[in-house]
């Protein structure tokens, strides 16, 4: 047994498994993992190794088949508690964009800010500023089907950042991007990580350059962690 760390981890998975099809498909197998405030983590591994499943469990949009997920002191948060966390503290960037087809790029960013302080003008201003950072301000009035894959990807990243989350869970944020744009996005994520209180980052990526830059690397194989460069011992919730 590892000794208990002083403070609770931001996110913790304790012997978590996720299976599908009545246990015939094992997407994630007995994973124990702690994520601490201020870490910049790369999750990599071949296709189908369980990266998306892992990241979805970290935001509560996926529920484990067995094991326990906790956020700080919240052990197995309820669906409503997870929703509130995603509204304020956890930002998500989806592998397959998940933009609303009836809304423009800017509106897609704005919708995640409903329920946060500030009116329509504040939401608008922040959405445009984020799209500017992503280099697609000139596309802000277009709907997803009018955007290229790379532009959709960047609109998705802008939405994930809209509420200034403490932790960003990004599933392959640089795929579909040319190398220059991809590099710019990576630089921006590192910048957000280093600035102020420092946004905690969990990034799923196949990009060797990005993986190399991360302070912690987790490699998955067939749903199990086969490599974790963490130097901090896993946190254990008090018995």
């Amino acid at each position, binding site marked *: 047994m590892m000794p208990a760390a002083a403070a609770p981890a931001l996110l913790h998975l304790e012997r978590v498994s996720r299976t599908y099809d009545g246990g015939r498909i094992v997407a994630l197998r007995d994973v124990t993992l702690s994520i601490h405030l201020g870490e910049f983590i790369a999750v990599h591994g071949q296709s189908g190794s369980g990266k998306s499943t892992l990241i979805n469990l970290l935001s509560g*949009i996926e529920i484990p088949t067995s094991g326990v997920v906790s956020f700080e002191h919240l052990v197995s948060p309820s669906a409503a508690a997870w*929703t509130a966390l995603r509204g304020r503290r956890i930002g*998500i960037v989806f592998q397959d964009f*998940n933009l609303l*087809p009836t809304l423009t790029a800017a509106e897609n960013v*704005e919708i*995640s800010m409903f329920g946060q302080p500030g009116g329509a003008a504040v*939401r*608008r201003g922040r959405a445009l500023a984020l799209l500017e950072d992503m280099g697609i301000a000139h596309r802000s009035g277009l709907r997803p089907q009018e955007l290229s894959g790379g532009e959709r990807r960047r609109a998705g990243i802008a939405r994930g950042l809209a509420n200034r989350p403490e932790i960003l869970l990004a599933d392959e944020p640089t795929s579909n991007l040319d190398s220059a744009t991809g590099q710019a996005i990576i630089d921006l994520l590192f910048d957000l990580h280093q600035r102020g209180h420092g946004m905690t980052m969990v990034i799923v990526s196949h990009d060797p350059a990005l993986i190399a830059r991360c302070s912690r690397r987790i490699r998955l194989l067939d749903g199990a962690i086969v490599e974790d460069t963490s130097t901090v011992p896993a946190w254990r919730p008090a018995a």
Partner: protein
Amino acid sequence: MTWPGLLLRNLVRRPGRSSFTLLGVALAIAGFLTLTGVSKGLRDASQASLRERGIDLVVMQRGMVEFFSSNLPEILADDIRRIPGVASVSGELGALLPFGEDNHALVGGWQLDNRPFEAIPLIRGRLPVAGEHGVILGQVLAEALHADIGTTVLLQFSPFKVVGIGGFTSPANSGMAVLRLAELQALLGRPGRVTLFQMQLTRPDNIAAREAVRAAVSALRPDLVVSVPDEVLKTNRSVAMLAASSAAISVAALVMAGLLILNTLVMAVEERTHEIGILAAIGWSRWRIVGLILGEGVILAAAGGLTGAIAGHLGGLALYRFVLLDSGIAITVQLAPAITAVVCAVGLGGLGAIYPAWKASRLSPTAALRQR
């Protein structure tokens, strides 16, 4: 983007679905309003027409299913006239008769000589005199028949000369024709018979006096019914049946509107499961999602309700103009039922949205996201 802005975008950017729902709701509401207008019009018609004539009580044959089958001897007027408190009595023979080949109108045979209250307000012309086969047309009827003073009209296929244009304003009166009683009796082969007696009282405002007259008239014959103007059509079975069936259909129309909204919203939720999953995944609470669907439902219902209220009003006017003119029934689409209908539509829209909203809010984000 404001909250209402978001709701409107969701509706406007799905123009097909939104407009069909709106139309469906509008039609249902319009149907409801037109039909309630018919029953209201039925109730108003007799009342307005008899009030305008200055009548206090009407005597008819009791238990008649069809209004015009009431059949009383003209001389009964003499017995009624002797009752204390009766100021005047006048017999009227009524019939719904063909004008020309394809028009119908209400025709009244009036005792034009012995009516102290007959004062038919004439816009033009005069009252018909005995033996000339003259007719007075109400304004609306004259207009519909394109007839004026001097025109000959075919009434039940017999020629009558238009001698006056009446100035009555109630729908029933302005849509009817008036002949001398004897000439209508001859035309219909019902000499000495009338449909009803119109009475004026010496003290019309004294309820006790009026009830005394009523009782005395009723005592003359067992088959008489004496009504105040408001009750005349209510005591008539066929009118009551028509009113009841239009009330039933109008309620069905309103329920239809609610089901339509429900159907659209349920479909909207099914086809937007993925979208709802996205909203849940980016931190939208269950209540905000419910609010979105409810809000869209209420907006659709309100827009459909308002469109329907306007369409119902126009539909009522059209129905009166083209179908019911000869019946003397005005379709009175009024503000109160229109407001009721719109409020009901919005309420049903809200109710209709609760089920799909509840359904949507129960989805787990990944389950919803997997659906395309």
